[in-house]
């Protein structure tokens, strides 16, 4: 009987081992050096965000309003024919990123938000006080969620930021002026360093988020029943009742931001 047991054990072990294990997911990226710290990557993507939001706020919302285009916090409602306000544009980008496989979190907050749910609390409120003083990014590790977190200043860079927030019925502060620190973006990522590929994926997920929300806006326009629809093509609202296509919009973002981003990406350590 001992022989039977030994034989069975030998066969069992052979069968078990001969299958090999489940391939480790990391094997695909092994050998690829992590060359960027999470802080560097979040600074890069935050810079892209600055450029994108400023372009959207100034060239689409600001100029669009002077052409009679409407932008509303309830822009998704069926009976509202309008586009997303800049804060909601950012929310749309964040939502799109979360739908992607890239584990990047993006949020917008303030100490005087229009929506009370966006008011900073705890650690974020403390760090935001520092940001208001020196406008420098703040980094910390969120122990509870095991996420590397960064906060970047959000400045009133366009007249539309100031006028909309000052005039909003739910505003908690009505004396905003250009150049004020209105809030901060918060970014989160689970790893402390990223490979080149992962870094490009983070930047791409942000760019895709921009396109997604902008396309949603264009689709909303398509469904307008009463409002005049702007012509969508290569022209911008500054030239009349026009809106750029998503590709034209993204191209402009890339033209403005690409130098800074490329400078980072080209660095080899």
């Amino acid at each position, binding site marked *: 009987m001992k022989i039977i047991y030994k034989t069975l054990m030998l066969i069992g072990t052979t069968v078990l081992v001969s299958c090999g*294990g489940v391939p480790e997911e990391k094997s695909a990226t092994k050998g690829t050096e992590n060359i960027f710290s999470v802080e560097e990557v979040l600074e890069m993507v935050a810079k892209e965000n600055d450029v994108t939001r400023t372009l959207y706020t100034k060239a689409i919302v600001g100029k669009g309003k002077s052409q009679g285009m409407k932008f509303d916090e309830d822009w998704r409602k069926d009976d509202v024919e309008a586009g997303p306000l800049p804060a909601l544009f950012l929310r749309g980008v964040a939502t799109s990123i979360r739908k992607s496989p890239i584990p990047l979190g993006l949020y917008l907050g303030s100490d005087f938000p229009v929506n*009370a749910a966006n008011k900073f609390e705890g*650690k974020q409120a403390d760090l935001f006080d520092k940001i208001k003083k020196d406008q420098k990014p703040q980094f910390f590790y969120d122990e509870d*969620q095991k996420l590397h977190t960064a906060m970047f200043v959000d400045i009133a860079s366009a007249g539309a930021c100031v006028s909309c927030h000052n005039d909003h019925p739910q505003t908690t502060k009505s004396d905003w002026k250009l150049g004020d620190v209105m809030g901060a973006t*918060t970014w989160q990522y689970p790893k402390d360093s990223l490979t080149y590929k992962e870094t490009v994926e983070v930047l791409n997920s942000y760019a895709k988020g921009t396109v997604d929300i902008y396309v949603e806006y264009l689709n909303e326009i398509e469904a307008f029943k009463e409002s005049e629809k702007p012509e969508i093509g290569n022209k911008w609202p500054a030239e009349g009742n026009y809106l750029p296509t998503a590709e034209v919009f993204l191209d402009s973002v890339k033209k403005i931001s690409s130098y800074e981003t490329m400078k980072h990406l080209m660095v080899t350590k």
Partner: protein
Amino acid sequence: MFKISPLRKRQFFGSIIGVVLGGTMFYLLTLNSTDEYVSIGPMNTGHEDLSCFACHADAKGNLLQQVQSNISYAVGAREEGVDFGTQDVTVDNCLQCHDRPNDRHPTYRFSEPRFKEAVKHIDATTCITCHTEHKEERVSVASVNYCMNCHQDLEIENDPLDKSHKELISKESWSTCIQCHDFHGNHKYDVPKKMSDTIPMEAIQNYFDGGGDPYSQDKKYIALSLEGWLKTLDK
């Protein structure tokens, strides 16, 4: 061939019967038609037609590979363990059918540090906190006072309600929130302006338990059916 000791015959045949029975059970219980015998409880409202695999996808590798990988992990020869049998069900599984751009309280929002305290009371980062599956109901929270975790400071300018939101909050009437507002904002209806027009709590509880929808039959977004979900996989 092996010789079987007459004293070990019972054990031998017992083992053979065990292996055959085990194999048969494994085969039968992995058939789609026997889902209900494997399930830990009846599906929640709206999920009745889902197959197990819709949420419980096969884990990577075959069973032997999974066993080997986890043994390797246990002895430190591998950095991470692997799922055994089926993959863990996560929020992503839910969102494949229920995700929508206009969700008033999307789960990802609560990952932000500012919701740290609120999440300690109610973990809104995951769907199953309120929608525990296999309970044959729609919503499974013990109490409907969860709005208190984030909206203590709410004040409405030109409050349209005949009793102000501020007053309701000061009196800790937290159950009244849900009598006007659906949590995910997925219904098309006129929000009541008089307290007397709000939805009775019994109707809300009935809805949570899997009954009729008291907010509206008109929804902004309809979740994907099993067929619709399968089509998205084909794409």
